């Protein structure tokens, strides 16, 4: 008991030291640094396409990064649908073994999609089989909690985050967990890969975000600040910062090199939590989906709201910006996906 107590005190002292060090490094605010930036004016986006076909709540979506305009969406009707978003045609409709799906991902090559949820398994589906049909090519069991998010590094490696408070790197071919990322003290809800694919950031129900080195398997930095569960994380385009969305109704911008929070995006009349976040191509716009059915567009540099995407009849559960930055897709509990720009 005594050792525990002294360790606890040591931890508290260190936390204070870190807090002071962060303050010392904070020699200017975002508002000051961006005072000379030109305003971008009101951003008005309209729905360009509506993707209809799911029969229940949509929980996740992910854009393909190949040259097609494909995206994959997962719904609790037990289906993964791969859409050609430009023509609104369904390219594949994949029935799932478990309908409690919470996440999906598109491989950069366009050859695979992955999904998972309350079955604790990450399932990989091959889209380009010789027979022409879509089938499960690998199942990755191992997590002891629900699968909240997954992202492909390439056709052979995938990173997952789970309700068992850990993240994992898998070798798809062997089906083994190569690396385990332990450290969070709450369900890990979301992850985002860095542009150079060497690190990733995770957000969890312990209100902290963590930066991990994929190769080393260790947590490099921890970012406290939020007051409640972090539901979504996304990297800033240059890889030096990332944004988070939380149940405390705020989005925040954290810088990796400064090791601290740089900005907060909130308003008194926004009381609902954020479910998903994404940056525009330049990083100037931060799009965030909320529980109150709207999606807000923030000017990330001026921390002002630049626009609203209103059109869904239920919670916006997921959103994503295309690789070329041309459009944003929102998925909702109202079973529709909308493409905006």
């Amino acid at each position, binding site marked *: 008991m005594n*050792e*525990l107590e002294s*360790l606890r005190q040591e*931890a508290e002292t*260190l936390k204070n*030291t870190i807090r002071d*060090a*962060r303050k010392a490094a*904070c*020699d*200017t*605010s975002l508002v000051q*640094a*961006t005072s000379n*930036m030109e305003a971008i004016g009101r951003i008005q*986006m309209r729905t360009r396409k509506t993707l209809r076909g799911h029969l229940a709540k949509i929980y996740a979506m992910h854009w393909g990064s190949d*040259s097609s305009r494909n995206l994959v969406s997962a719904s609790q009707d037990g289906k993964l649908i791969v859409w050609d978003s*430009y023509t609104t045609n369904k390219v594949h409709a994949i029935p799932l073994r478990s309908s409690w799906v*919470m996440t999906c991902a598109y491989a950069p090559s366009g050859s695979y999609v992955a999904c998972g949820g*309350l079955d604790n398994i990450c399932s990989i589906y091959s889209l380009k089989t010789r027979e022409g049909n879509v089938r499960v090519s690998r199942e990755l069991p191992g997590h002891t*909690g629900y699968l909240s998010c997954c992202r492909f590094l390439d*056709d*052979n*490696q995938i990173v997952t985050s789970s309700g068992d*408070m850990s993240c994992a790197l898998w*070798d798809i*071919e*062997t089906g083994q967990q190569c690396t385990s990322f332990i450290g969070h003290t709450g369900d890990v809800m979301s992850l985002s890969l860095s*542009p150079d694919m060497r690190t990733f950031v995770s957000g969890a129900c312990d209100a902290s975000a963590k930066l991990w080195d994929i190769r080393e398997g260790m*947590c490099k*930095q*921890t970012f406290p600040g939020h007051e409640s569960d972090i539901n979504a994380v996304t990297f800033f385009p*240059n890889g030096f*910062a990332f944004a988070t969305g939380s*149940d*405390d*109704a705020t989005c925040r911008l954290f*810088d990796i*090199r*400064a*090791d601290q929070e*740089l900005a907060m995006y909130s*308003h*008194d*009349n926004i009381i*609902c*939590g954020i479910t998903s976040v994404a940056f*525009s191509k*330049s*990083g*100037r*716009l931060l799009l965030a989906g909320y529980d109150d059915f*709207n999606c807000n567009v923030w000017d990330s*540099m001026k921390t002002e709201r630049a626009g609203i995407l209103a059109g869904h009849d239920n919670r916006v559960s997921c959103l994503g910006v295309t690789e*070329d*930055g*041309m*459009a944003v897709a929102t998925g909702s509990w109202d079973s529709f996906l909308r*493409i905006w*720009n």
Partner: protein
Amino acid sequence: MEHFELTEHTANRPKVYTKMEGLVREMQDPESGVPVRSQKLFLTSIPAAFMGYDLIEWLMERLSIEDSSEAVHLANLLCQSGYFFPVTDNKTLTVKDDSSLYRFQTPYYWPSSAAHGHSPDNLEYAIYLAKRSLRNKQRHGLEDYELEALNNLKKTLQNKWDFVIMQAEEQVRLAKDRKKGDKIVTDSQERAYWRVYRPPPGCLTLEILPLPLAACRLERQQKVAARGKTVADAKKEVQFLQSSSDRTRVKTSVALDSLVQCANTYLEYDPFLTPVQPSNPWHSDDPTFWQINSILVEVPTERRVRRWGLSMEELVSDPTGLQEFTNYLRKEYSHENIRFWTAVNDLRRSSQSQIQNKVKEIYAEFLAAGAPCEVNIDGKTMEKTQSELKTPSRFAFDYASDHVYTLLLKKDCYPRFIRSEHFKALLAAGVQPSHKKRFFNFGGPTKKKTSTSGASNGGANNVNAGTNTQQATTARGSSHDLARGPAATAAVAATAANAASAAAGGDVLTPPTRPHGLPGSLSHTNVTAEMRCETPYR
């Protein structure tokens, strides 16, 4: 967990409730809140009610909301969560910015109370419905969906039904002793409560968290709480905090500066902020933009080439850019570096079965003494690599590759490329799509170009024949006439001046000439074969 019945609405989301309730309490403040009083509707007096537009006005002032529709949206959210309800409308939970009347819900029925153990279960619902069926039919009669629910509950709770009826009768009897005004209010509050938790068919339910997920979270929290912190955990935490406190931090001014730079530099490449040329396919239904910007193109757009000049990452992450870079380096007899780097990337992404062979091949081609494409790495890096090769994995050449990337490619080859005539020619030849004309024969990578070497007039004539018919078609997407940043326009003007000397006048697209000969067919496999090191280059 038996004592705590977990329903959809006992899910664990205290934060949003805290905010909503804080707001609602402020609304109920007798001095500064929403004006609540007895309202007259036709000939009846409606106790304890407030009007829609009083609520909206209060919200707009309190939260500095400029647009009333936002306040209405928020009010509806609060209503659907069960904090107040329309008085005269028994079915919906919508709020309107007019003189319609609403009443506050009693805290006993607030959602957070549900979270703490007071859950709207079937037994309670049955008692409530039974109660209403015992009372005045005109005022309390059940709707069709409620009758159906009652009948179903009678079946499922048949062994408790006597208890249900007994409770219902008891509550009706107790209610008789209360004042009329109070009864009206409490009856309406109870009714509104069930409207939230047992909504009529077709009505929106405001779910907070789906059932199984809430159960998982709760279970985990209980487990973590039960276990407590071990000494091992505490030691790990201290260790981590120690390394965190030792780290050097960049000043926020520096950090912010790089973010601002990024946002400014890429402003012209952000389609949400700068319209694309010739038109945005999502608006105009014309996919030309994607066609002229496909992954591998013979002639990239001028904008794309300019982007390669921003950083080496931009150049090598674009397959066309990588190709041009490699071509340039081959001409300079130094393309072993880029080929090595590409090969190592490929190794990293390979399947397990291919790794052993690929490692051998890469070593033989690039690192062995006297290798055909020997890359120049220092002794220390070679040492590290050799030790990695003892247990070859997909990461075996990462040290070497990083060294080549950072020191050789990024610091030397890349800057030379950007300053080279090769690059300048690419810029000059870059496609500059106009927003007015629609392009036909400007296709993908496999098109063989009909080159008119340097000939301006010839080219112009070829296309002019077509322009008359083109002009007939209305300018698609012309509303996206451009709010381009001043810097971008200036840069384009500068390079446009260069391009003008190479192409005919006017803003019509002329297939530009290639600065160097490259085979017309550009399939990926052809390219890699083309680029392999051959002895002549040694």
